[in-house]
């Protein structure tokens, strides 16, 4: 049956409409959970608030289990699901830039729009910086292109790279995630911060 758009069960436009509705829901939930606060997001790096880590890892595990079970029931063909291409160099460089920006600004791209939409000035500055980055990248594409396209590894999945079945890898990831939640909560006790 799925993916719906690839198998032309729904049109490309319906797909975009659904993405729009889901996006609004995502933004709403982010805001309601306090993710529009840069202090909460930066808290992950200082250890006093690890909600972000827990929420996003739980989301990833839920989606992973959902997809695997859907595939098991024949509801979705995982071979047709889009996997991001891996360009190793740009993934590492981009990861560093993103990480530094995350700690400095206290937002990731999605949550900065959440913060901006409820009128937070720092979030608006962050969004401004985001657009400056987009312009620098776009205008200077010729300079970065070689690095941007370097070390293309195809469309690998971690499970294939490790030689494990998707199911085994899922189980390992669940256990690792639960272990991380435990460490995160230990860190919250270890590095407490006054209420903000």
């Amino acid at each position: 049956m799925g993916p719906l758009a690839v198998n032309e069960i729904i049109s490309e436009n319906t797909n975009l409409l659904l993405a729009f509705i889901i996006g609004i829901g995502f933004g709403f939930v982010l805001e309601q959970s306090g993710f529009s606060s840069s202090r909460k997001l930066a808290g992950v790096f200082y250890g006093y608030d690890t909600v972000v880590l827990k929420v996003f890892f739980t989301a990833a595990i839920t989606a992973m289990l959902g997809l695997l079970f859907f595939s098991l029931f024949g509801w979705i063909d995982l071979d047709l699901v889009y996997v991001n291409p891996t360009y190793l160099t740009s993934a590492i460089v981009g990861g560093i830039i993103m990480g530094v920006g995350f700690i400095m600004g206290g937002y990731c791209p999605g949550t900065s729009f959440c913060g901006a939409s409820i009128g937070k000035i720092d979030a608006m500055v962050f969004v401004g910086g985001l657009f400056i980055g987009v312009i620098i990248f776009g205008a200077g594409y010729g300079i970065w292109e070689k690095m941007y396209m370097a070390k293309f590894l195809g469309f690998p999945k971690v499970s294939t790279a490790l030689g494990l079945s998707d199911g085994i890898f899922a189980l390992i990831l669940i256990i690792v995630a639960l272990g991380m939640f435990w460490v995160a909560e230990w860190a919250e006790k270890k590095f407490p911060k006054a209420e903000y």
Partner: protein
Amino acid sequence: MRPRSLLALFLIPMGLIIAAVPQNTTRPYKLTAEELLAEANTRTQFVTPEVVADMIIKKDPSLRLIDVRSQDEFEKYSLPGAINIPYADLLSDEHTDILNQDVFMNVFYSNGTLTANEAWMLTRQLGYENNYVLEGGLNYWFDTILNPEKPSDSSSDEEFAKYDFRKSAGMALGGGNVIMPSQEQSAPSTKPAVKAASKKKKAAGGC
């Protein structure tokens, strides 16, 4: 109970289940019957004897001829460089790497078109690509390449050019008026090394 324990109680059994079940059991056939019919109707799976002959003469490394007739028939006569995968053994595991790959252009042939085309349909329905069928099979191969018929004097230049090509190709491939020359000597007996099928490109979507 604390939320983390609750979460663990739910997630770990789910993870155990998903780790224990086999994957990809739900859809062994990649193409639906309708998709296959539509593709078969385009007849793009057929390659003409001229194209194959040209590739054999030029020793095109991407060409891989696959004889789907029985081993007896294969030993009696086969095209240069062909390997033998009898139709009955087509789906055995040892041949998967040969049939499901993206390096070679596999061309199935049988005496006529029927068996080779059936082999193409089966592999295509499994989602394999780069498999083709020799148009007309060996019978047509003999008629066109090994014993080409001289066109009548009133035929077009194109017909004559085709005839000339067939004639020279036929001679290069041991034709002329001799039927069933033994070609096995020139055929490498070992299978060419097969690169493991790489992951196919996914349908693009977006995040």
